[in-house]
C-alpha cells in the first residue's frame, strides 16, 4: 500500500517537474502541443463524420421501405457485374404469383423503367420514368407532398397521369404549383397529379430525379425497350410484413421463380433477390470503409504531431543535460530520469489531445447546425482520444527519455 502511494507520489513529482519545464518554454510547448492538438482534432472529427455517415445511411435505407425485397431478372453472379446477355425475363404474372404464394407478402409492385424527356412551356428535363402500380407507394414509403399518388383506376385505364419528383419539378416549373399542369412526356400529353415527397440523395444518387406513371400507360405509350412479352417488367418490389418473413421470403421467391421457369437443379438462378436488409448491410460496410479511410488520412497529421513531440523532447533533453547530471548526482536512478521525460511528453500530448477533443466537439456541433449532418462524438470516442494522445506521448517521448536516462552522470554534469 505504501509502495503504491510512494509510486503515485513519485509520478506526482514528475508531473510537477513537467509543468515547470513546460512553463519555462511556454511558446515552444504551445507550438508542440498544437501538432498533437490538430492531429487529435482531425482523427476525432473523422470518426464523428464516419459515425454520422453511418447514421444517415441507416436513415436513407429506412426511406427505401423497411422490409422490402427487389427482384431483378439477372442471374446471381457473385463475381463481377452482370453481362448484357444475362438478362432474363420477369413478368407481372410472376409478381402476382409471389403475392399469392410467398408467405408474409403484403404487396408486390412491378416496375418498368425507361428514360424519357419531359417538355412543358419551353422547358425540358430528361429523367427516369418508373411505370408502376398504386402498391409502389406503400411498399417503398413513397408519399406525395402535394396532389395524389396513382390509384388502381389510373392503372386500369392506363391514364395519362404522372407524379413527378422534386428535382424534375424544379426544372420544369420554376414558379407555381405543378399539380394540375400539363406536360408532354416523349410528346405524349400527361397531367401532373402529384409531387413526390423529397427523399434527398444517397451516395450520389438523386432520389428526387424521377417520375412515376401507371405501368400500363408506360408500356403502351412510352416504352422504347424491346421486351420479350406483353407483361414483362424491369423489376419487382415485394413488400413484407416483417423482417422475419423478409429473410425467409428471399429463399421462397427464388424457389418459386425457379419452379415457374423450370430451372433445373444445379443451374444458375436467373433471378437476383436483394432485400433491404442486405442493402443496409452492404451500405454499412461501405460507410465503414469510408470511415477507415478518413481516419487513416487524419492519423497522418497525428503522426506528424507525434514526430514534433519527439523532436522537441530531444531538444529538451539536450538543453537539460546538466540538470540530468545533477539529478543523477543527487541519487536519481536511470528509471527516474526516464519517467521524468516520459511524463513530460505525456503531459504535452494529453493537454493537446484534450484541446483537440474540445475543438472537434465544437466543430461537430457547428457541422450539425450548419450542414444538418450528424457527427456524434460519444464518451468512448472522447476517452479514446485522451488515452490515444497519452500513448502518442509515451511512444514518441520514449526514445528521447531513454536517451536521457542512458547519459553518464559525470559527462552530463560537465556539459554546458
Amino acid at each position, binding site marked *: 500500500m505504501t509502495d503504491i502511494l510512494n509510486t503515485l507520489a*513519485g509520478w506526482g513529482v514528475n508531473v510537477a517537474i513537467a509543468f515547470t519545464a513546460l512553463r519555462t518554454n511556454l511558446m515552444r510547448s504551445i507550438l508542440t502541443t498544437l501538432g498533437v492538438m490538430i492531429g487529435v482534432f482531425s482523427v476525432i472529427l473523422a470518426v464523428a463524420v464516419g459515425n454520422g455517415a453511418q447514421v444517415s445511411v441507416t436513415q436513407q435505407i429506412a426511406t427505401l421501405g423497411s422490409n422490402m425485397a427487389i427482384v431483378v431478372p439477372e442471374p446471381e453472379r457473385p463475381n463481377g457485374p452482370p453481362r448484357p446477355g444475362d438478362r432474363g425475363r420477369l413478368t407481372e404474372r410472376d409478381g402476382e404469383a409471389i403475392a399469392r404464394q410467398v408467405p408474409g407478402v403484403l404487396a408486390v409492385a412491378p416496375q418498368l423503367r425507361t428514360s424519357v424527356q419531359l417538355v412543358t412551356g419551353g422547358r425540358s428535363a430528361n429523367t427516369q420514368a418508373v411505370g408502376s402500380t398504386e402498391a409502389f407507394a406503400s411498399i417503398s414509403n413513397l408519399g406525395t407532398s402535394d396532389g395524389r399518388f396513382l390509384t388502381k383506376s389510373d392503372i386500369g385505364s392506363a391514364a395519362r397521369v404522372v407524379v413527378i419528383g422534386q428535382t424534375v419539378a424544379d426544372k420544369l416549373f420554376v414558379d407555381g404549383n405543378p399539380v394540375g399542369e400539363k406536360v408532354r412526356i416523349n410528346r405524349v400529353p400527361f397531367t401532373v397529379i402529384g409531387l413526390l415527397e423529397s427523399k434527398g440523395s444517397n451516395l450520389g444518387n438523386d432520389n428526387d430525379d424521377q417520375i412515376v406513371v401507371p405501368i400500363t400507360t408506360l408500356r403502351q405509350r412510352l416504352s422504347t425497350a424491346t421486351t420479350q412479352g406483353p407483361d414483362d417488367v424491369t423489376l419487382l418490389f415485394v413488400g413484407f410484413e416483417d423482417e422475419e418473413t423478409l429473410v425467409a421470403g428471399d429463399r421462397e421467391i427464388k424457389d418459386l421463380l425457379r419452379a415457374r421457369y423450370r430451372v433445373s437443379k444445379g443451374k444458375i438462378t436467373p433471378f437476383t433477390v436483394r432485400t433491404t436488409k442486405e442493402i443496409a448491410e452492404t451500405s454499412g460496410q461501405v460507410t465503414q470503409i469510408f470511415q477507415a479511410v478518413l481516419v487513416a488520412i487524419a492519423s497522418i497529421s497525428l503522426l506528424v504531431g507525434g514526430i514534433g513531440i519527439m523532436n522537441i523532447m530531444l531538444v529538451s533533453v539536450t538543453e537539460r543535460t546538466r540538470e540530468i547530471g545533477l539529478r543523477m548526482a*543527487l541519487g536519481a536512478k536511470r528509471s527516474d530520469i526516464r519517467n521524468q521525460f516520459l511524463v513530460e511528453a505525456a503531459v504535452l500530448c494529453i493537454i493537446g489531445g484534450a484541446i483537440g477533443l474540445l475543438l472537434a466537439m465544437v466543430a461537430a456541433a457547428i457541422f450539425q447546425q450548419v450542414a444538418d449532418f450528424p457527427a456524434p462524438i460519444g464518451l468512448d470516442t472522447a476517452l479514446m482520444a485522451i488515452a490515444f494522445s497519452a500513448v502518442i506521448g509515451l511512444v514518441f517521448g520514449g526514445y528521447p527519455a531513454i536517451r536521457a536516462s542512458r547519459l553518464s552522470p559525470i559527462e552530463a554534469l560537465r556539459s554546458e
Partner: protein
Amino acid sequence: MTAPVLETQDLIKNYVIGGEMVHAVNGVSLRIDQGEFVAIMGASGSGKSTFMNMIGCLDVPTSGTLKLDGIDTRTLNSDELAEIRNRKIGFVFQQFNLLARTSALDNVAVPLIYAGVRPAERRERARARLDAMGLGNRLLNTPAKLSGGQQQRVAIARALVTNPLILLADEPTGALDTQTSLDIMGIFQKLNDEGITLVVVTHEPDIAEYAARRIVFRDGKVIEDAAVTSRRRAEVA
C-alpha cells in the same frame, strides 16, 4: 581507531582523448576516516577532479579498488550506484547547480524525492536543513533571488539532507568572493566539528588551510599527504 569511510587501492583511471591515452589517475591508494576534513589540492589536470568523481560514484575507475563505507563500489550496477550517491554522499559544486525557477525548499528536497521520502516529510526535513544554514527566511526564494553565498548554503543544505556519510565539495568557493569563501569554510569547519566527514577539492592554498589534512595531486599521483600544520579557523558570522 575510527572506521574508514573511504579506502582506495591502486586506483587508476585512463581516458582516451584524441586517440591518445591519458592516465588521469595513476595508482592512488589512500584512506579517509570518519570525521576527517581533507583538502585535495593540485593544478588543473593533476587528476584531483577525476579522483573526486570516482569517490563520488559519478565516474567508474579503470582498475583498482574503491571502498565506500566498506562496500566495493566496483561491483555495483547503475541503480545501486545511484542509491549510494543518494544515501551516502552529499555533493557541493563550484557552480552551486541549483534548479532554476525552483524554490530553495524544493531544491533541498530533491534528493529526498529519489530516496522515496513522502512529501510532508520532505518539506519538513528540507526546512530544518535550511534553518540550520540560516536561510529559514528564504525558503521560497528561487536561486535568482539569492546571493552566491546563499545559493551555496542552499546547496550545502541539499547535500546534507539525506544525512550522508561524506560530503564532497568540488571547488566550493571557486565562484565566491573572499569573505563569502571564508563563510563557507567556516560552515564546513562547524559541520566537521559536529562529526561530518568532508573532502574539499581546491586549487587555492589558503582555502586548503582550513582543512585538517592536505593531499596534493600531480600527474595522477599523490605527491603529498600530511596534516595541515598552521590550521586556520574561520569564525561563523
